[in-house]
């Protein structure tokens, strides 16, 4: 007997037993058989048919009305069975697509990964988590010959695959720049022209670009419409928003950017982020930027990587473990 016949036989047995004894165990049996039906892709109309056959086997004298009503039910189940088959096919297709995207996402994160540079002066922590499978946020670090550390953090309006693909382009464009020899505003200006020429006009990319130079002890930075980050001054024990204005990338090829600078002292901290961090939502309300700073304060004494991990976990939790946007947070602590 194949599984189909076996299932049919147990269906009949359980049905008979149930009618005779109203036994819960028989109903439990029905549940098990039903799972087997699903597994073996038995359609609803076939189950109704089986039911009719079983009834006839147990009660050969069954009333016409009952049998006819069952035929009627069988007819009514045909469309349902088709819809179910379609659903199963779409489900398989969906799984296939998902696993393809998983592979692509893995490739993307490998291509885009940027190692945190080793420096004696800065303690650097970074976390970047996509809301869906592919990340539309981008960040990278470059260490120059003179020990200068460059940090780019970028966000694309939009998420998912198109966003991720555009970000790959940003990466390859930047790889061709002699970054540590360029000023932060010159980098944004060059990148702006690349984006303007190559990225769909409906997509906007924002970027914050910062460079720390050990010889001057300053952080130089420029922004292309990016969510402003913060710096923490240990002297005044206070957080300040970076003030940097600049048009988002890709809108106007002739846009220019300005470079600003601040002194960074021991135990100061630089916080760079994407709007996935500040636009975390608690229910229907956005979190306040102050709330972010409160959370950072709580963990400020820890190494930079631990701070970003804790902040991420905090926001992941208040969003019920479902990120609505890609989340990237970079924290630099000046340690000497």
């Amino acid at each position, binding site marked *: 007997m194949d599984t189909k016949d076996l299932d049919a036989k147990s269906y009949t047995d359980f049905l008979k037993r149930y009618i005779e004894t109203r036994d819960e165990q028989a109903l439990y049996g029905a549940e098990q058989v039903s799972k087997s039906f699903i597994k073996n892709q038995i359609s609803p109309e076939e189950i109704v048919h089986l039911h009719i056959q079983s009834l006839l086997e147990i009660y050969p004298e069954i009333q016409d009305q009952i049998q006819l009503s069952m035929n009627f039910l069988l007819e009514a189940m045909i469309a*349902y069975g088709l819809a179910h088959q*379609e659903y199963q096919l779409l489900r398989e297709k969906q799984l296939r697509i998902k696993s393809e995207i998983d592979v692509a996402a893995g490739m993307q994160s490998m291509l885009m990964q940027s190692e945190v540079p080793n420096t004696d002066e800065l303690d650097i922590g970074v976390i970047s988590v996509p809301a869906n499978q592919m990340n539309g946020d981008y960040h990278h670090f470059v260490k120059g010959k003179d020990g200068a550390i460059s940090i780019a953090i970028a966000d694309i309006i939009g998420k998912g695959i198109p966003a991720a693909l555009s970000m790959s382009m940003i990466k390859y464009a930047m790889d061709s720049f002699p970054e540590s020899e360029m000023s932060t505003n010159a980098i944004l200006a060059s990148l702006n022209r690349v984006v303007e020429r190559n990225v769909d006009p409906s997509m906007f990319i924002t970027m914050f670009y910062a460079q720390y130079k050990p010889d001057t002890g300053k952080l130089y930075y420029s922004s292309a419409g990016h969510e402003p980050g913060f710096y923490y001054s240990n002297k005044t024990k206070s957080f300040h928003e970076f003030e940097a204005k600049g048009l988002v990338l890709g809108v106007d090829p002739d846009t220019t950017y300005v470079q600003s600078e601040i002194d960074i002292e021991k135990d100061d901290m630089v916080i760079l982020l994407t709007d996935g961090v500040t636009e975390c939502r608690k229910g229907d309300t956005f979190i306040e930027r102050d709330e972010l700073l409160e959370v950072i304060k709580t963990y400020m004494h820890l190494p930079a990587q631990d701070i970003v991990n804790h902040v991420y976990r905090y926001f992941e939790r208040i969003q019920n473990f479902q990120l609505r946007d890609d989340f990237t947070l970079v924290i630099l602590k000046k340690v000497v």
Partner: protein
Amino acid sequence: MNSQSCVSIQKEWDIVAARQMGREIAKQLGFGTVDQARITTAISELARNIYLYAGEGQICFEIVETLEQKGMTIVATDSGPGIEDLSLVMQDGYTTSGGLGAGLPGVRRLMDDFDMESEVGHGTRIVTTKWVR
């Protein structure tokens, strides 16, 4: 051996007549209740499409017999507007009825063999067969 009977489709009521004739033939050929119901559903879908999109046409039934097997062929023809993109309408979930599972992909699934020809402005011809198991 080859015999043919047809129902012409003009009014919604004719769909029922086509179903009835189809079911009779399926029963005589020895199809089980489940297959009878499947064949009838396929007839309904084809006849409804004629009624809805072409206005009028025909549903014909043929009994086909080879050495090994016996089956029933439904031939749906009309001289309506035709279908432009056949691959598109055969995609699951395309139907305007929206994911109710039936439609032309449903017909293909209910039956064993399925073939379709259509010329825009000239009409559509669908031939589909189910074999007695």
